[in-house]
């Protein structure tokens, strides 16, 4: 598959073959990295990380991935210190940065910014979040984590919990899971149900979808429980919010009827939607999920740079 020069902007641009290919390359890189300690595929290549909006995890994991591939990194982690403050256009910033680098990773507060950057740049652009729109590398690392934990994605029953109405992470993940033969439990308060059009799309693609407000009722069915945060701002009053928050906290008591093999995931940062007592159980997969960010981003950097011949 020819990935050299390709942009990674939206899950919508991916076919199932694309996804499978990235996951396979990530797995090979992870194995090789474990054997050798460090790699040199991207030696002499420079990654520019343009974070117009702060992020710890995503930026650090991209930087770590580039270093582990033997490349180097330049960039900024807030727009405040750049010419953007002087009114420079995004297009000009991108055209400038590409003179200094071989691949761009960008996070921007506006929806569509990564698409625009990719149109302007000759070098590949990887979207690390554009406003509330897309965060495709998160979706890929979520899929990778599931695949590594179960050896497959097909045949699994997956619960998505939390803010399913506004959460871009769960929307993208659900859309990507639709490529697979999975059963989905959409678990959320009434107010934060998954948008109808996404559910319709999932059903059209043959996904068996159950909508429920009852977390404990769904638990015994699940192989994976993907937890996301419910934000205070979504609720008209404090009372309602507290009620919902209480009934969706994942703790050992909620998990008592779970399959022994159930894995709990979370895109992090978490606040109190997963109790720390879950961390030391076999169910906790969220730190492993954080780790997955590195091989997946190594794969994407290496593929778009075109330096992974032989992997």
């Amino acid at each position: 598959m020819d990935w050299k020069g390709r942009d990674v902007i939206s899950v919508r641009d991916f076919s199932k073959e694309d996804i499978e290919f990235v996951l396979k390359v990530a797995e090979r890189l992870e194995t090789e990295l474990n054997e050798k300690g460090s790699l040199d595929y991207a030696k002499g290549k420079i990654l520019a990380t343009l974070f117009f909006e702060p992020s710890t995890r995503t930026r650090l994991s991209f930087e770590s991935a580039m270093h582990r591939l033997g490349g180097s990194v330049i960039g900024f982690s807030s727009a405040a210190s750049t010419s953007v403050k002087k009114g420079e256009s995004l297009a000009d910033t991108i055209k400038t940065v590409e003179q200094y680098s071989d691949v761009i990773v960008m996070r921007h507060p506006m929806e569509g910014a990564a698409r625009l950057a990719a149109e302007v740049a000759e070098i590949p652009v990887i979207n690390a979040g554009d406003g509330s729109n897309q965060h495709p590398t998160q979706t890929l690392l979520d899929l990778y984590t599931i695949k590594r934990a179960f050896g497959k994605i097909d045949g699994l029953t997956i619960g998505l919990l939390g803010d399913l109405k506004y959460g871009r992470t769960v929307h993208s993940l659900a859309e990507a899971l639709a490529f697979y033969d999975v059963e989905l439990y959409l678990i959320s308060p009434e107010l934060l149900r998954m948008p109808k059009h996404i559910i319709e799309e999932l059903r059209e693609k043959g996904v068996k979808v159950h909508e429920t407000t009852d977390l404990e009722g769904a638990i015994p069915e699940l192989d994976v429980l993907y937890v996301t945060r419910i934000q205070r701002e979504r609720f008209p009053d404090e009372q309602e919010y507290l009620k919902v928050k209480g009934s969706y906290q994942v703790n050992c008591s909620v998990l008592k009827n779970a399959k022994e093999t159930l894995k709990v995931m979370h895109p992090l940062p978490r606040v109190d939607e997963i109790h720390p007592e879950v961390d030391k159980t076999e169910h906790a997969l969220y730190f492993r999920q954080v780790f997955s960010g590195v091989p997946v981003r190594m794969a994407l950097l290496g593929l778009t740079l075109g330096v992974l011949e032989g992997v």
Partner: protein
Amino acid sequence: MAELKVTAIKEGTVIDHIPAGKGLKVIEILRLNRPNGGVLLLASNVHSGKLGRKDIVKVEGRFLSEEEVNKIALIAPTATVNIVRDYKVSEKFKVEVPDEITGILRCANPNCVSNHEYTVSKFYVVSREPLKVRCHYCERTMEGDEILRNL
């Protein structure tokens, strides 16, 4: 036939069955009002069997292609286009909503990059009945009135 007499053109394009009141917008979208262009005629609020009232736009010396004319499909889905040669209608076609709409629609999402940086707007048609489009940049969809308000 009185209407035809005063507004007959020899060679050009007649856009008929435009919803009443949208004729000017059609002229604007298709940029028919060029300084050195041919005669341009707009008839507004003409009686029509099908529409009650309609607008008609006639432009001399220009033969609009189907592709060009499809740009008006969003505001004038009922329009028919007549190519006139030697005073006679030589070709007739209906406008069709194209697969992609570039440059004429604004994205309704205030946080879309297309509303802040220099871009040519672009939308993909997700469904025609009812009309639904997706922004190339922010990926949000727009339908119905929201589309008309942003033309």
